[in-house]
């Protein structure tokens, strides 16, 4: 009970502090600094519900779903299995920041690293909310929706296949996360499911939240520092427009569920292939996601992942520009 009392008093103290500070008046920070903070807070506040949802789903998978149940219902053939995993997002529609804790939970539950990567890449694109919002924004015009769905599916399975050939998949993970998956905690096994759930929430929050905070502040700094006009001026060139959209996707770190609405106003300036590249790359690789994925994968793994995904997204964009 003492712990609960500390928690209640701590939360009450935070509410009191939050309620009192506006009365102290404006700080009159320089505009650029104030906007940097507003942009960073926006990323954190927008991501929080998805992170919590992702952790809760991860808890359900790890603690409450019977062992090996998910593993058993998936096909045994590795290729078919990864293809099936690509569509898990249809049943677990969490945007990309929520998928990181969920993917960690799937590895802990018995997925191979390559299978978890397939899920991590495919789920933010192949999920009902993303499909509906992309269709609302673009319909079937210029093949943008089709390119996004097929592109996301193809890249997810390509990455899964490449890393399934790796002789030691565990070496792709950070040593801390690999150890967490490897070590059988005898004390934890004796605990109730409720206690396990709370422990898992605390552990995942301890890993994901610092990464989210640091990713958000870096995204804010880059957004304040890079003039948007530089990117927009490149819009009509078939190659440069794709590279500009890749930079924008990397910087903006926007949620895949609504990125189609964000990019819609750019459709009059940028070629369709570059829009498709933005919609494929953004949910997989951006500043915030790299910071969050670093909690799980080694830096060298993320460099390889970024290179392959960027090249594939650019190639798909070029094809769409050529065909559309």
């Amino acid at each position: 009970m003492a712990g609960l009392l500390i928690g209640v008093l701590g939360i009450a103290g935070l509410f009191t502090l939050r309620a009192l500070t506006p009365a102290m008046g404006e700080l009159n920070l320089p505009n650029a600094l104030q906007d940097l903070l507003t942009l960073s807070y926006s990323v954190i506040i927008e991501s929080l519900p998805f992170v919590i949802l992702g952790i809760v789903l991860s808890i359900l998978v790890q603690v409450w779903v019977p062992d090996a149940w998910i593993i058993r219902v998936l096909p045994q053939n590795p290729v078919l299995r990864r293809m099936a995993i690509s569509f898990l997002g249809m049943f677990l529609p969490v945007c990309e920041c929520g998928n990181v804790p969920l993917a960690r939970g799937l590895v802990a539950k018995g997925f191979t690293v390559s299978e978890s990567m397939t899920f991590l890449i495919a789920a933010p694109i192949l999920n009902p909310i993303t499909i509906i919002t992309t269709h609302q924004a673009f319909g079937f015009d210029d093949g943008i929706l089709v390119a996004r769905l097929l592109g996301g599916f193809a890249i997810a399975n390509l990455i899964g296949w490449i890393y399934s050939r790796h002789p030691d998949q565990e070496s792709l993970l950070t040593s801390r996360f690999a150890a967490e998956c490897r070590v059988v905690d005898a004390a934890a096994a004796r605990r109730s499911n409720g206690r396990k759930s709370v422990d898992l929430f605390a552990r995942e929050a301890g890993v994901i939240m610092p990464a989210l905070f640091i990713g958000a502040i870096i995204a804010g700094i880059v957004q304040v520092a890079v003039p948007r006009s530089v990117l927009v001026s490149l819009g009509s060139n078939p190659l440069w427009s794709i590279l500009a959209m890749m930079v924008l996707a990397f910087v903006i770190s926007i949620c895949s569920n609504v990125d189609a609405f964000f990019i819609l106003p750019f459709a009059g300036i940028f070629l369709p292939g570059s829009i498709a590249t933005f919609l494929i790359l953004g949910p997989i690789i951006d500043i915030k996601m790299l910071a969050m994925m670093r909690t799980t994968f080694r830096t060298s793994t993320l460099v390889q992942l970024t290179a392959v995904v960027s090249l594939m997204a650019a190639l798909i964009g070029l094809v769409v520009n050529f065909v559309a």
Partner: protein
Amino acid sequence: MWRNVIRWNGIILVAVTIVSSLWLAVTGQLVLYIHPRYVIFTVTMAIIGLAFVLASFAMRADPGGDDDHDHDHDHGVGSDPLAELDPTLTGQDASSPARRRAALFATLGTALTLVIAFTLIVLPPATLSSATAGQRSINSTGVGSEIQSVDDAATATDGAFSAFTVLDWASLLRQTTDTSFYAEKPASMVGFIADHPDDSDNMFYLTRFVVTCCAVDAQPVGVPVYLENWRAEFAIDDWVQVDGEFGTNPSRASTEPIVLTVDDMVPVEQPAEPYLW
């Protein structure tokens, strides 16, 4: 003490973000950061998260509980906080470079996130300013699908025109520069002042941000306003209501063909919902 801060850092960051989000929602200011469609979802998940935070304190921080004992077994790495950060460091010499580096990064990372969390809880909420409007280039993109079309606007009543927002007028200005279209169509808009580079002493942009998801994706839209020597009474970032009509631009320094000429302009409070959706 610092070891405990590092251990509880994630829960502290979740708690701070939840409290901040709930307070913003209760005071109607969550829309400064996210689209209104996400408010209910955010509040719902914040309440679920708050339950987990309180349960964490109840189960893991209770002196009578088994947290300390359990912690010795967590991840099988003992009670060494550095080993908890990176299990491969277990057993290494305390003065080894790898351990010192890990300790330094852990300390710096935790300190940085706590500083950000502190500012999140104490700084007054704020909307984006003219600095971001300029940095993102006003009207540099289209204006999305929810726009006024010239055909629809041509048959609108005076009452409808006076309800048009900065976004509505900006979308019409992108579609036509025919001055006869704008004749006898009264305009009344609220926005903030952002610099117009063509003739910055006599022109400015009346500006709003259009948000699709959160402040990160805010796109600045604006209508050019002509008012001689406007800086004598107003300043950049001031929120104002402007009444007037669109017509040929009197400024010789500007290439902007049509501007809003001012009949009346008064300072106003920043709207409760400063962004357009």
